[in-house]
């Protein structure tokens, strides 16, 4: 059957401006998109650039968007994308820097960020010398994370990367999880501190787009939340976030519900005059409309004493 591939093009050796080339090729009914691309390159246009490596859905190199849906071209069947007509539009993943056409700059997008989380174990003594062994369940959990093949789809879904390319992103932070939760690792607080730096775990909006996009079921969003929970337990090193979390927890612990006014001022810091002053324009507008919660004028919910007990127990377990 004849299928027209409308392929995104960009060539830095020409004008580097995004464009599109249309190619109509005859492909077998059970072909993959990759079959079509290889045929185009062999028969029509040798300048078309795309990545092709394992050709069996394992290496994650050939991710693109076909008719708006992200997929691996080597496993995506042409017929799944041509039900409304014999046309397939191919675009790069949205958060990717492009080298040429559908070839991405994986260094900038992924590898530099993976390196930034220091993806190696800092081992202590071997288990035979008294070091900590890994249990079967711990290893199974880590193995799940290690099954990542760096296809970039979690970063493709990420809500933060489109507004801040320097955010480490779910793929690299999930790599961080692999070492934070390895009982053999001795980097401890230093490793958490590394992940807590600006552009790290606290910049994640936990929107679960990464989880929805991951083809391996690794659940990157939950991994980031687990690192955050661990940081909460051992002590958050990012000062601003620490103030925010401390205030949030304190008001729920003391009253059963959130004192939003208190949270706003305590997150800035009670001695941070500049930060507090920056809150004023919005606070005044809200006050005029009768909707700014006044800090500390906050009644206890019925049953607040029970909530306090839960907190005390949870905090004790954390120690």
């Amino acid at each position, binding site marked *: 059957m004849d299928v027209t591939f409308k392929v995104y093009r960009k060539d830095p050796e020409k004008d580097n401006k995004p464009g599109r080339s249309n190619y109509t090729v005859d492909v077998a009914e059970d072909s993959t998109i990759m079959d079509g691309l290889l045929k185009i390159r062999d028969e029509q246009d040798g300048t078309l650039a795309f990545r092709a490596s394992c050709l069996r859905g394992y290496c994650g190199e050939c991710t693109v968007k076909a008719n708006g849906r992200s997929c691996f071209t080597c496993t995506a069947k042409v017929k799944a994308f041509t039900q409304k007509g014999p046309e397939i539009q191919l675009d790069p993943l949205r958060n990717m820097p492009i080298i040429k056409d559908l070839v991405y700059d994986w260094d900038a997008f992924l590898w530099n960020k993976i390196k930034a989380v220091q993806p190696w174990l800092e081992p202590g003594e071997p288990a035979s010398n008294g070091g900590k062994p890994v249990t079967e369940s711990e290893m199974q959990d880590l193995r799940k994370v290690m099954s990542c093949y760096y296809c970039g789809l979690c970063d493709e879904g990420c809500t933060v990367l489109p507004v801040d390319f320097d955010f480490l992103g779910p793929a690299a932070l999930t790599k961080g999880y692999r070492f934070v939760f390895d009982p053999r690792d001795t980097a401890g607080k230093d490793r958490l501190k590394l992940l807590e730096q600006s552009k790290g775990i606290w910049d994640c909006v936990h929107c679960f787009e990464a989880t929805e996009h991951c083809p391996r079921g690794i659940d990157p969003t939950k991994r980031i939340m687990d690192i955050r929970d661990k940081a909460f337990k051992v002590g958050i090193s990012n000062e601003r976030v620490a103030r925010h979390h401390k205030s949030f927890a304190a008001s729920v612990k003391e009253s059963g519900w959130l004192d939003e*006014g208190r949270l706003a001022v305590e997150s800035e810091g009670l001695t941070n005059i500049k930060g507090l002053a920056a809150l004023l324009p919005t606070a005044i507008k809200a006050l005029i409309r009768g909707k700014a919660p006044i800090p500390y004028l906050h009644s206890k919910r019925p049953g607040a004493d029970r909530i306090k007990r839960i907190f005390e127990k949870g905090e004790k377990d954390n120690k």
Partner: protein
Amino acid sequence: MKYAFYPGCVSRGGCPELYPAAVKVSGALGIELEELKDAACTGAGVLPQNISDPINARTFAKAENLGLPIMTICSTCQGVMLQANHRLKSDPEYRAKINKEYLAEEGLEYKGTVEVKHLLWVLFEDYGVERLKSLIKRPLTGLRVSPFYGCFLRRPPEVVVPTKAEAGRKTYLNDLIRILGAECVDFSGMGKCCGFPIITANEQNSLAMVGKHTGEAKDKGADCMVTPCPLCHLNLDGNQSKAEAQEGRDIGLPIIHLPQFLGMALGFDTKDLDLKRHLVSADAVESKVNMLT
């Protein structure tokens, strides 16, 4: 039709217009609410799971004792409770541990039978679209409305859409806008994050998201945006002027709570829905809607 009502902190704090609007609209629809007055904050994804799960288990146990499902009016409360409930329902050992260690001393036990639903889901899954249609007194004809779901009404997939029967949850808000007679203005960010969770950690990124979403909806011709999440409202409405300054453009897109939007179609006087409390003026929406009566 009765629910254990969990209004959440923000509907009485930063968005005090939401709570009364939800109560009024539920009354008009004939949905009876028994408020869980001694339930605590869900933890909102800020408190660690080992503290928030027992707190939420306690809330579920209280609803279970009333024999009622829980209704929320906040995507964040909904999502945090839904995820906690998923863990507690699917892992009886974990539930037993929490019952024993945290709830027993209050004489509570969560048996894992409670459902948690946002008002938006209640309308489609329990109340019924035809019944809702029969109560529309003021079809919102000509009003151009963009939907903004809030992350947790769409994800994570295994708890929001556990079976094909719940697949409609991805489009309920778009569907509701059309059912109430308004025109749905789709835009790419409708299911994305509003940026609120990082307003403290990275205000610049958070405001960039506000600017991106509200700006795109405005450019596509929306008169307003409707959201089932008061936390999204705090950012999209409360911080829109800051986002305008950061992004160097005017936006001025009114953000309306879901119950206010429903209330307009059910024939409420717009004054009774407290639209004047929003930081981005909703006067143009009010006049457009009042012209319809």
